[in-house]
């Protein structure tokens, strides 16, 4: 028996019992009065619409011209409460096509039901509301729009998609942007195929069944006997033969799944939606040998190594020799060679913004066109490194927007990206030359998605962590003196890692330092800023430093003998970043962060400190995040040191309230003020 996996690593899913396991009694074309009279959804009282039921079924059929095909049928019924839900009556179905083969939609039927007085009015979807449109090279869109939709209407539709693409068995999302009361998917797989169901999500299945069944194909057989001529005339015969097969019947269903709504700090919403995908594992047709499809990561490694657009391309690199010789001429160490080659590719080859696993051009072509997709660039980088006798291999991965990579389900399509790993002495370095402002030891944020896999023939551990050890640090040092209702002095900042990368990128986006300074002045419109300087803007592996002179007149409030001053002049949070009270899925920070703010404040002549904020330190369990605040008086100076460090990058739903409270306390602490008093 096949094992059904749940993806999430976690505590959040189990197979809860006690749910209804019978499908709701919903027949196409028949609506109940109860459904029409429903005024709101009990799961979400302000939902504009709710999926009453969504049934999907994939079966296999046989046809003489196309052979075995998959037939997917969907029947969906939606209750519409408010005009904002009318969009659910506009349906778009994407149909895959490749060369001459295409998925075909048929049997598109739909009804809208309205209750008018006590009468059920049923309006049928006709051809005037149906359209087929070319979308892109690989997809068509079939659109239809249901007629006569009003507040309180129930709509339903059904369609069938016939497909030759046996690798793309339709997946099924149990969750939607509106609540779903019942969602059910049935798949009947003949013995010739093994598909592996892959689940993800943060809710339980109400039904999870797998049972043996059987089916039959009707096959038309044409035979010809005789070789022509008088004695042996040709005889053609056509007969129908029944092929019986054993099958596996899956049935999965969910009940009362809330709407999926996006929150901050996520990878991609695709990682959180409750769904099942079907991965083709193997086939065994009568009279044919057993065929296995991408069942292990090792096999995927081999496939990639052989591919003309991946491993093989690295062998065809004779023409880049001269380039490498020039680049490493005079380089003393391997580390220097790596640095030079990385820098060359990073600066000379422009990334065309497309994230790919496969190259579209050879390293030589990439050198010539000076632009390429991520695979073109990073495979070129590997080729150049190898040519310089550095051991370098590709690392395949899934970017954050492509979703979490699930090690337990080997599948080529989980990868969408490739970077390089270079070995220099004892050190392993991960390199991605597409990131314009990344130093060699940093990967762009899109790559920070758990782990990747080294694609090489060498034995050994193939999985490598993509998590940066040093995330990002930002230190601000303000040295200010208070005179004549003005705070004046110097601000110096130092940034490393992703924080430095972000500022470098902001400066590029602002067309250089002058443009960035204009933005800074706009943000701090009540400040005067002079002598602004940036150091190490282009030296990517050095900390990025700013220094500038400031004059602030609005930072304090004078009242008689007193001066009130909030010392958090920079870097305070305006608001808690986690505004929602609850969250169903994890918070995913891309990298750990460290923020330090230091203030050295000289007091004006004749003033003493009347009150200082209290010293405080608070932390999340296991020091996953720590905040500390100290304020001291040293002679005529006040010294403030404030630190925030988030070390852990993933916080699960049950940790969320703590994380939110942690930030609540920080935001409150930042409001505190220093009070000075004239002697």
């Amino acid at each position: 028996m096949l094992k059904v996996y749940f993806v999430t690593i976690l505590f959040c899913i189990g197979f809860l019992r006690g749910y209804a396991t019978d499908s709701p009694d919903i027949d196409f074309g028949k609506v109940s009065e109860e459904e029409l009279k429903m005024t709101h959804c009990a799961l979400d009282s302000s939902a504009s619409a709710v999926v009453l039921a969504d049934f999907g079924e994939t079966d296999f059929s046989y046809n003489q011209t196309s052979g075995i095909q998959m037939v997917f049928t969907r029947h969906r019924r939606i209750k519409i409460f408010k005009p904002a839900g009318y969009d659910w009556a506009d349906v778009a179905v994407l149909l895959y096509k490749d060369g001459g083969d295409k998925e075909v939609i048929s049997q598109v039927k739909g009804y809208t039901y309205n209750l008018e007085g006590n009468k059920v009015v049923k309006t049928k979807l006709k051809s005037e509301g149906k359209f087929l449109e070319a979308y892109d090279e690989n997809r068509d869109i079939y659109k239809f729009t249901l007629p006569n939709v009003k507040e309180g209407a129930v709509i339903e539709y059904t369609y069938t998609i016939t497909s030759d693409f046996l690798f793309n068995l339709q997946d099924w999302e149990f969750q939607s942007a509106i609540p779903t009361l019942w969602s059910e998917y049935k798949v009947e797989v003949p013995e010739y195929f093994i598909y592996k169901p892959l689940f993800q999500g943060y809710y339980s299945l109400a039904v999870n069944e797998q049972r043996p069944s059987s089916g039959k194909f009707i096959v038309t057989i044409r035979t010809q006997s005789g070789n022509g001529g008088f004695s042996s005339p040709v005889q053609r015969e056509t007969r129908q033969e029944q092929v019986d097969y054993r099958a596996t019947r899956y049935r999965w269903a969910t009940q009362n799944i809330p709407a999926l709504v996006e929150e901050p700090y996520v990878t991609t919403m695709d990682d959180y939606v409750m769904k099942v995908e079907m991965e083709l594992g193997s086939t065994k047709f009568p009279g044919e040998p057993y065929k296995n499809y991408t069942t292990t990561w090792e096999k995927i490694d081999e496939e990639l190594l052989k591919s003309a657009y991946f491993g093989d391309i690295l062998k065809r690199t004779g023409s880049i020799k001269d380039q490498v010789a020039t680049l490493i001429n005079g380089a003393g160490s391997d580390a220097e060679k790596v640095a030079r080659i990385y820098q060359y590719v990073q600066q000379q080859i422009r990334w065309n913004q497309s994230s790919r696993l496969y190259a579209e051009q050879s390293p030589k072509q990439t050198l010539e066109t000076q632009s390429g997709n991520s695979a073109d660039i990073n495979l070129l980088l590997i080729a150049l490194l190898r040519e310089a006798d550095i051991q370098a291999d590709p690392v395949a991965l899934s970017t954050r927007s492509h979703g979490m990579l699930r090690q337990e389900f080997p599948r080529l399509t989980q990868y969408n990206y490739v970077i390089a790993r270079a070995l220099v002495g004892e050190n392993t370095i991960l390199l991605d030359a597409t990131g314009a402002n990344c130093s060699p030891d940093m990967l762009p944020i899109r790559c920070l998605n758990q782990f990747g896999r080294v694609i090489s023939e060498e034995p050994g551990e193939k999985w490598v962590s993509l998590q940066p050890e040093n995330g990002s640090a930002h230190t601000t040092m303000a040295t200010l003196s208070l005179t004549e209702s003005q705070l004046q002095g110097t601000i110096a900042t130092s940034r490393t890692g992703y924080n430095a990368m972000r500022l470098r990128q902001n400066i590029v986006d602002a067309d250089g330092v002058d443009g960035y300074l204009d933005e800074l002045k706009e943000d701090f419109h009540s400040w005067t800023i002079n002598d602004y300087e940036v150091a190490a803007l282009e030296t990517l592996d050095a900390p990025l430093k700013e220094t500038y002179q400031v004059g602030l007149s609005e930072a304090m409030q004078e009242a008689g003998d007193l001066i009130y001053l909030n010392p958090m002049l920079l870097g305070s949070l305006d608001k808690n970043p986690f505004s929602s009270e609850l969250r169903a899925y994890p918070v995913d920070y891309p990298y750990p962060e460290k923020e330090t703010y230091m203030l050295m404040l000289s007091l004006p002549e004749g003033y003493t400190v009347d009150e200082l904020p209290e010293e405080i330190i608070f932390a999340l369990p296991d020091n996953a995040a720590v905040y500390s605040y100290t304020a001291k008086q040293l002679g005529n100076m006040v010294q403030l040191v404030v630190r925030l460090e988030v070390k852990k990058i993933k916080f699960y739903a049950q940790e969320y309230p703590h994380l939110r409270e942690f930030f609540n306390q920080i935001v409150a602490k930042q409001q505190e003020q220093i009070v000075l008093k004239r002697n």
Partner: protein
Amino acid sequence: MMRSFLIAFFLIVHHLAVLASSDYPASAIPEELKKQADAVVRAQEETFNIRSIDAATYTIHRVVTVLNKNGEKHAPLVVGYDPQHKIKSIQCNVYDARGELIKKVKNKEIEDVSAISSFSIYEDNRIKYYIYDAPSYPYTVEYSYELEFDGLLFYPDWNPVDGFGLAVEQATYALVTPPNFPIRYQLQDLSEPTKAVEEGQQWYRWALSHQSAYEKEAYQPALGSLTPRVYLAPTDFYFEGYSGNFSSWKQFGEWIGQLNEGRDQLPESTQQKVKQLIDGLSDTTEMIRVLYEYMQSKTRYVSIQLGIGGYQPFDAATVDRLGYGDCKALSNYMKAILAAADIDSRYTLVHAGAYGDKVLADFPSMQFNHAILGVPLTQDTVWLECTSQTNPFGHLSDFTDARNVLIIEKEGGKLVHTPAYSTQDNQQIRNTTVVLDESGNGQLSTQTQYTGQLYDDIAYITRLSEQEQKQAVNEQVSIPNFRLQSYEYQLAKDRIPVATEKLALQLDRYASVSGKRWFFCPNVMSQVESIPANTETRQHDVLLRYAYTETDTTVFTLPEQVYPEFIPESTEIHSTFGSYYNHYSVEQGKVVYTRTFVQHKGVFPASSYPELVEFYQKVSKADRQQIVLQKST
């Protein structure tokens, strides 16, 4: 929405002989043209050759050099087409900084997509485009294409400076017509064309050279109203079996009237329904409201526009049967419903959008992208937006307010102006109470009325799901730490609509308590958020699009044993752009804060910009002032 204006926008263009080898090294661009420029049009030749009343050929040859990343948006080849505007040829080459050919674009590299991004609508406009991935700057893209027009409802305008940061070295436009063929044009910052008769055809030629780039500024009028342009329009035309004359708004309207004629027949059952709905009502406005809400409850917006369907509505009976249609179909349907109640109304064309008026009043031509319905009453006119199921009766919003619109009457078209919203119409009136406890936590309850155009910013929240509503409220409130306890919205759908919002928030440590002192900002809900940037030079006029008034009263109840140490002075600010007033008073354990902020709308001279910055800076400072309290021990 009406269609095809997109196309006009994309039509920018010459007969390509063969794309010549480039004579366009980037180094040849005059230095003064590079100032403020992200891209430079090196050469652009467009010809619109009208062969007859319903056939023309449009060609363009364009060479543009991209100087930096921001200039990339000016380079792509983008050609809009549909069955009435067919592409005859396309070519595109790319050159490096020295002007050496580096790429000849193949036909299969040119993408072909639907011009409509949304899945929910169906139209027949498509786009072919090609975007070059440049490894470095500068680089130069040269393209040319030819379009065949079948039917001429509009002529492509000439708009060579169609974006910020784009300089033009040399551009020409040639309009070619048969002899004595009537055409009309209107000029903006350009002189009259040179005219010539060549090979029996009439030529009109415009040229622009050494035009420097426009720099983007905050609060500036639309770029399109500033740059050199030629607006062109047919006098007599023929399109998809319909002919007409656009030389006056009256005649333009006659043609629209002709397209709509006979399309307002309702089925008998709906006519009966209408009569039933208004039975017993005597006030006309009330009848219109009832019928408008009936139409809203019965229909929704779905755009299906093919060919003449871009200008001609579905007939009313079809809308009645399907329950959907586009702006034309729904406005026409509403007109038919009113007619069944013997109420006369006017199908009306408008250029909709939040940017305001774009219609050239003295240049009758196809300048519209939307339809609404005007219902004349004895005093004024009620305007009905028919594509929304939620829009309040008679509310124009910023989509169609304060602009020229074309009403279609029996005698033809007439240009009229829709009303503007004043500081009285657009109000935010807020009453807040905060009860502070011993630790500085607060219990806040607030009630806010948002009227006029401010209504729209709030009403959308009522259409969201519960979780999204909470997110929206959480985003809208800018208090550092709070927990949303309850929220409630009420909508009063009038011509000046009112949205009432009630919130209860638990404020965490709103007053910052350090030692014996308490600090808090009494303006808890209504601080100004963005302030115009202080710039050294200002080139363009200052446009303030919206007028509004914000009024606040906030009462804080203090815990016992806490008394004020510092209360800010009240502030009063007057400016051309508006006014501001705040006041603090303390009485018997309470702090009462009042605030009034008024912003005017209008176009102000560029020289007044520093005053706008100063006004907002002062307001921002006043908004953030703090009260200091002391705890007696």
